[in-house]
């Protein structure tokens, strides 16, 4: 397995992860965790180049952190079970399920032979199934792996994601639908993170029946937008699925960078003001919805910006300059934003926050 140039086998990963979680949460951290109105979790890179996961207060202060032997990417949290999972950055083959309170032992999941994780996944509403986006790299097709939360996250099956370069995926609130962003970019672990088909990409957005894996709807980008990689998702209160994109075409184009769709409906592309598109540098790295306030947050590390939209109309509500903007998550008020250079809301820490944040409380 290659994670950021490091070769780590399963035994080494288990050992390192186990050491990281061996200690109980300190009373101070436990107090901070219980006291905080909102708590987030995110991957990070420490100044010495090591990696880990941290829980963070709404002010951006680190509550607890645990070292990981390699870099994580996306995360998911089950409010039903209190468990979180951090997925390896592609083309990693490990995911770690953990209890942010450290009351339960972490569980390391290994992708099966011929698969690697794409860095994202989601729990079913009751937390009994973990869905993970995966690459069947020799078959060049995206897959959704299913892992049993009642049985140590044993792999119990997989669904065809009906696309290539599967990246983010999520689950409808009632657990009946899986929603998948197929970025359309072919990669293979033999070639590291190299994009193998930029001139013939096939991005798509897919909805599956969560029980059977049956295809319910699939939206492919038109030929003029074939280089619009549909990569990240979140679902609004009304069931509307928002997606965010990264443009692999000419840098001086101004493509749509976000949009939405719902079950039974075609996709709508959001035409942001040119100035906003320029600010996002044709690259949205993360998306999150604050359902209570009905707003959508987008970030661009390349453009150094965070943008907040009205989830009902798509209108831009605010734009902020955030150097190396990384993750977004719904905050108690507004959208929480982190950055590669250590900023998390109002606090700067001596870490580089990774691309995604999840809210765990």
């Amino acid at each position, binding site marked *: 397995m290659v994670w950021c140039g490091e070769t780590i086998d399963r035994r080494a990963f288990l050992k390192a992860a186990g050491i990281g979680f061996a200690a109980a949460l300190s009373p101070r951290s436990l107090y901070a965790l219980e006291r905080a109105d909102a708590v987030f979790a995110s991957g990070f890179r420490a100044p010495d180049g090591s990696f880990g996961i941290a829980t963070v207060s709404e002010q951006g202060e680190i509550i607890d952190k645990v070292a990981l032997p390699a870099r994580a990417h996306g995360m998911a949290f089950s409010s039903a079970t209190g468990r979180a999972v951090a997925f390896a950055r592609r083309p990693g083959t490990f995911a770690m399920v953990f209890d942010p309170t450290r009351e339960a032992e972490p569980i390391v999941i290994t992708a099966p032979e011929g698969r690697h994780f794409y860095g994202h996944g989601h729990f079913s509403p009751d937390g009994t199934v973990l869905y993970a986006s995966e690459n069947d790299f020799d078959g060049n097709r995206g897959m959704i792996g299913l892992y049993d939360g009642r049985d140590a996250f044993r792999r119990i099956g997989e669904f065809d994601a009906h696309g290539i370069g599967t990246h983010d995926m999520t689950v409808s609130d009632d657990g009946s639908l899986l929603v998948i962003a197929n970025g359309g970019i072919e990669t293979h672990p033999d070639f*590291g993170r190299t994009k193998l088909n930029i*001139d013939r990409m096939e991005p798509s957005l897919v909805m599956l029946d969560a029980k059977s894996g049956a295809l319910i709807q699939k*939206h492919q980008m038109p030929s003029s*937008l074939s280089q619009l990689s549909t990569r990240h998702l979140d679902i609004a209160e009304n069931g509307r699925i928002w997606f965010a994109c990264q443009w692999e075409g000419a840098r001086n*184009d101004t493509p749509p960078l976000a949009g939405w769709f719902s079950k039974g409906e075609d996709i*709508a592309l959001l035409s942001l003001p040119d100035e906003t598109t320029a600010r996002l540098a044709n690259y949205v790295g993360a998306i999150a919805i604050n359902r209570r306030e009905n707003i959508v947050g987008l970030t661009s*590390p390349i453009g150094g910006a965070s943008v907040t939209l009205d989830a009902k109309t*798509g209108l831009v509500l605010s734009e902020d300059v955030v150097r190396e903007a990384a993750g977004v998550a719904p905050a108690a008020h507004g959208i929480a934003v982190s950055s*590669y250079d250590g900023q998390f809301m109002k606090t700067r820490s001596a870490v580089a926050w990774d691309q995604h944040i999840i809210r765990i409380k």
Partner: protein
Amino acid sequence: MRKTFASGLIALLPAVFVPAAFAQEADTAPTVELPTATVTKVMTAAVDGFIRPGYDAFQKSAEDMTATMRTLCAAPSQANYDAAKAGFGKLTASWAHIEIVRTGPVIEQNRFERILFYPDRKSTGLKQVQAVLSKSDETATDPKTLATKSVATQGLGALEYLLFGTGSDTLISGNDFRCRYSAAVAENVGNVAAEIAGIWDAPDGIQKAWKQPEVDNPVYRTGGEAITGLLGILVHGAEAVRDQRIETFYKGADKAKFPKQALFWRSENTWPMVIANLDGLSELLTTSGMVELLPEKDRSIVAATEEKLKSMSALAGKVTPDLEKAVEDTSERQKLDTLLADGKDVISKLNDGYGGAIGLSSGFSFADGD
């Protein structure tokens, strides 16, 4: 010209291209901000001093190889066969020098894979080339029709088997089909090289986009983007040497070893390829003058990287070409271990050292997106 894709608040698919005036420059916070004149100087040196000459040299090597193969086909002999094998070494070294550029036209339209299909863990290329030979498939002897066949049958991997694999000695006594197929592969590689060189040579094409970052540039809108792209060539190139070319067959003394998965083990060109890769990285770093973009206090990182690349290149030249021995013999393994460790060091120097110095706070790889 800049294109915009939709008008109105929400555009239902299918979206339509609508030309629009350039957007006003937004108030952005680009990660990397560098002096424009120095960026142009560095990018011009990279393009005109390394990339274009590299593809021109590769094209010339392929044309020489084609001529050498035709000579062998017309007059089979030990001397002409030896010349063909030597020509293969020159051709692959020429490719390895410029192969580090894994961006631009070379990765479009399968050009990279048409030149070199590797890694090939399932030996797809070997099976397909053997099938062509067993059927004496005449369509493989014409570069035009060969170009439409599987990429695994038309590049350097195929040519290596034809010249060094089972039955290759029949070329000495006159294996007409095998020889004409070999010549077609060489010509096909030359054609692909000419395509790439032609694209880079077009004055208003990619070379201009690389040299003059600006708002209405299809590749790089800012100097920071351009230099980050150039750094990406070096980081990805160094990663490829370590992860694809060495770790493919050797990951450490206590790990499984696969000497016959190494690139060009048959022709003993594994190390010449690695050396040419490393020398290419070193030359690009030096020729481009990337050091000029760093503050004085950070400039030593470039010299340290160049020094490490040179020591790796020298060490690679001392490893036995017999890869079975290289992975089993203790002293040879020590060289491999050193190459892996030094490779990691080079990646770190470029990624964190140079990347951090130009403003990528967590290094190049951390910020390369997903």
